[in-house]
C-alpha cells in the first residue's frame, strides 16, 4: 500500500474532515496532529512517504528536507500559497507539487455581496444607533437597478458579477484579457469607473496591478459611489481612497483587505462611519476549508492514479 504522510495537522482540521476517510481508504497514512517544529522531526515524519499532505505553511519543505526523503514524489499543499515549499528544488528532484486553488471563490464572492449590501444599507451604523435608542429613517441606497462595475473576471470576479445580476444590478466589467465568452459587457476602465454606482476589485496583486486604483482613477468614480475590495489591499491607493471617503466623493467602502494587515493601531479607517471592515476573512468559511481539504486529498489520489491535477510543479 502507498504511504502518505500528514506531518503537520495542528490544530487538527484534516482529521476532522470526511475526506480524511477517503485518504485512509487509499493509502497507509502517517498522521501527526502536532507541528514538527524542527527539520529533523519533519523529515522523520515524512521519511518513508511517497506523498505528503502539507497542512501548515509553518512546515518548511526545503531542498534539504526533500533530499533526506528519498521516496518522496508528491507534495499536496492545502491552500494556494506555495512559499513554504522550495519549488525549484522539487522540480530538480522530480517531485510534483500541487495546491488547492479557487476553493474559496464562492465564499469570497458571497462576502463581497454581504459587504456591498451592508455598506449600501449602512447596517453596522444603523444597528449601533438602534441599540443606542435612536430610530433613524432613510438615507440608505437601493442596489436594484444600479450599475455594478466588476474589475477582474477570474473565478471570484465572475461569481460576484453573477450575484450582482441576481439582485438586479446592471453589470459592466473590465479585465486585462477580455473574455467575451463569459457574456458580461466589457468596457474601458474609464467608462467602468465613470458609470458604476459600485466598483468591486477582483484582480490578482502583481507589479502591474499594484496601485491600480490610484488617485486619478478614484477621482473618475461617480459621486457617492461605493468601493469594494476583497482582493488585495495594495491594488488601491489607500490614502487616496481615505481622502475620497472623507470628502464624501466616495459614498462608502466595504474592505476585507488593507495595505498593512492586521490593520495597524490608530489606522484612520477604524474610525470611519461610511465603511464596513472585515479582517481578511472573506475566504474563511467551513465550506471553503472543507472544499480545500477535499481537494488536497483528491490531488493525492489523482497523483496515485497517474493524472496529476492542480500542479504547481
Amino acid at each position, binding site marked *: 500500500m502507498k504511504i502518505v504522510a500528514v506531518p503537520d495537522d495542528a490544530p487538527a482540521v484534516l482529521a476532522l474532515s470526511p475526506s480524511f476517510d477517503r485518504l485512509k481508504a487509499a493509502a497507509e497514512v502517517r498522521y501527526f496532529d502536532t507541528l514538527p517544529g524542527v527539520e529533523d522531526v519533519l523529515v522523520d515524519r515524512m521519511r518513508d512517504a511517497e506523498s505528503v499532505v502539507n497542512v501548515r505553511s509553518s512546515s518548511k519543505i526545503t531542498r534539504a528536507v526533500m533530499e533526506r526523503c528519498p521516496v518522496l514524489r508528491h507534495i499536496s499543499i492545502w491552500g494556494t500559497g506555495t512559499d513554504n515549499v522550495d519549488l525549484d528544488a522539487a522540480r530538480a528532484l522530480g517531485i510534483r507539487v500541487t495546491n488547492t486553488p479557487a476553493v474559496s471563490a464562492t465564499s469570497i464572492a*458571497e462576502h463581497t455581496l454581504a459587504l456591498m449590501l451592508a455598506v449600501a444599507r449602512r447596517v453596522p451604523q444603523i444597528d449601533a444607533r*438602534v441599540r443606542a435608542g435612536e430610530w433613524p429613517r*432613510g438615507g440608505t441606497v437601493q442596489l436594484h437597478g444600479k450599475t455594478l462595475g466588476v474589475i477582474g473576471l477570474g473565478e471570484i470576479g465572475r461569481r460576484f458579477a453573477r450575484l450582482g445580476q441576481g439582485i438586479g444590478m446592471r453589470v459592466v466589467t473590465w479585465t486585462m484579457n477580455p473574455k467575451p465568452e463569459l457574456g458580461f459587457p466589457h468596457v474601458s476602465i474609464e467608462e467602468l469607473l465613470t458609470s458604476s454606482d459600485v466598483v468591486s476589485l477582483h484582480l490578482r496583486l502583481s507589479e502591474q496591478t499594484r496601485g491600480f486604483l490610484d488617485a486619478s482613477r478614484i477621482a473618475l468614480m461617480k459621486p457617492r459611489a461605493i468601493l469594494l475590495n476583497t482582493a488585495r489591499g495594495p491594488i488601491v491607493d489607500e490614502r487616496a481612497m481615505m481622502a475620497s471617503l472623507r470628502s464624501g466623493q466616495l459614498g462608502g467602502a466595504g474592505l476585507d483587505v488593507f495595505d498593512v494587515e492586521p490593520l495597524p493601531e490608530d489606522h484612520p479607517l477604524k474610525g470611519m462611519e461610511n465603511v464596513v471592515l472585515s479582517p481578511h476573512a472573506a475566504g474563511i468559511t467551513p465550506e471553503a476549508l472543507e472544499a480545500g481539504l477535499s481537494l488536497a486529498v483528491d490531488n493525492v489520489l489523482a497523483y496515485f492514479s497517474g493524472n496529476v491535477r492542480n500542479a504547481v510543479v
Partner: protein
Amino acid sequence: MSDLFRIGISDDFYTEAAEPLEFVCQKKLAGVPGLAWDRIQTDNDKCAGAGELKNYDAIFALATKITAGSLRGVERLAVVARWGVGYDRIDVPALTEAGVALTITPGAVRRPVSEAIFTLIFALSKNLLLQDKVTRAGGWRGDLPKMGISIAGRTLGSVGCGNIGQEMFRVAQSLGFGRFIAYDPFVTQEQVKHLGVELVDMDTVFRESDFVTVNTLLNQNTCGLIQQRHFRLMKPASYFINTARGPIVEHAALVQALREHWIAGAGIDVFPIEPPPKDDPLFALDNVIVAPHALAWTTELMNDNGSEAANAVLSVSRGEVPNGVVNRDVLTHPKFLAKLERLRK
C-alpha cells in the same frame, strides 16, 4: 373651492418622509388642475380624527391610524392611499362601510424589502457586524469567535409566499441557494412552481430552513403566529429574519431563542412596539442585527411608494377605480360608487 379635489396628508410625512413627499407633490400632483393638498393633524397615537377627515376626498397615510370613530360623519372621503403595504393600523371594515377605498403600494415595496432581507441574510451568514467590530478594535481573523458560513446550497424558507415572499424567491434564484420552501395557506403549489418553491407546512419551514424569513401581513390570524415552539424546531445553525411586522412573533420567545442559542442569530427590522423601549433585551445580544423598520426604506422606495399612492389618488380624482385596492368589496358599495360618479363630473 368646493370643486377642488382635496388630498389630506397625514402629519407624520412632514417629520418622517419630508423629501419623498416633496418629490411626489412636485412630480405627480403639481400642475394637475383642480387638485389641492395640505397637512392634517393626528393625535399622539397618529390617529386621524373625523373632524379632519371630513374635509378631504383622499388621504395619504404613512403610519396613520384610522378607526371607526375617525370616520363618523365623514361623507366626502373616497380613498385612503397608504404609502406601503401594511394596513394593520387601519380599520378596513369601517372604511368599506363608509364607502372609502383603501389602497396600498405592492409594486413599490416588493423589491426593496427583498433586498433588505438579503442584506440581513448575508450580513448574518458572514458574521459581518462582529467582523467589523473586531477589525476596528484592533483584532484580526484569529480573534473571530466563529467563521462566517457559505450561502451556497442552503435552504431558504418563508412564512408567507405572497407579493414579497415570491419576489424574495425570484431574487434568490441566482444567489446560490439549494432549496426554497414556504408555508402559505392562500397560495397553491401551481402558483409558485415556476420559482422552484415547495409549499410545506409551517413546522417544516422552521425545521428544515437555514434561513427562516417572515413575509406575511399582520392581522388577527398572524398576530403571535410565531411562538416558542417554532424556535425550538429550528436548526442550531439557522437564522431568523423578520422584516414584516413585529407582533407576528412572540418577542420573548425570540429573545430566549437567541439568548440560549437555540438558533445562530436573527435579523430584526420590526418590533412589537415601534420605536421599541430602550431596554429591549434584544439590544444586549450580539447574535442579532437590529434595524429601525427602515432597512427597506431607501429613497427609491419612498419615491416609488408615493408615486404609486399618488396614481391611486389621481385615478379616484378622475372618478376611476384605482389600482392596489385592499377592500375589493367597496368597489360595489353604493356610497363609493356615488363618490366616483360625482368625481367624474
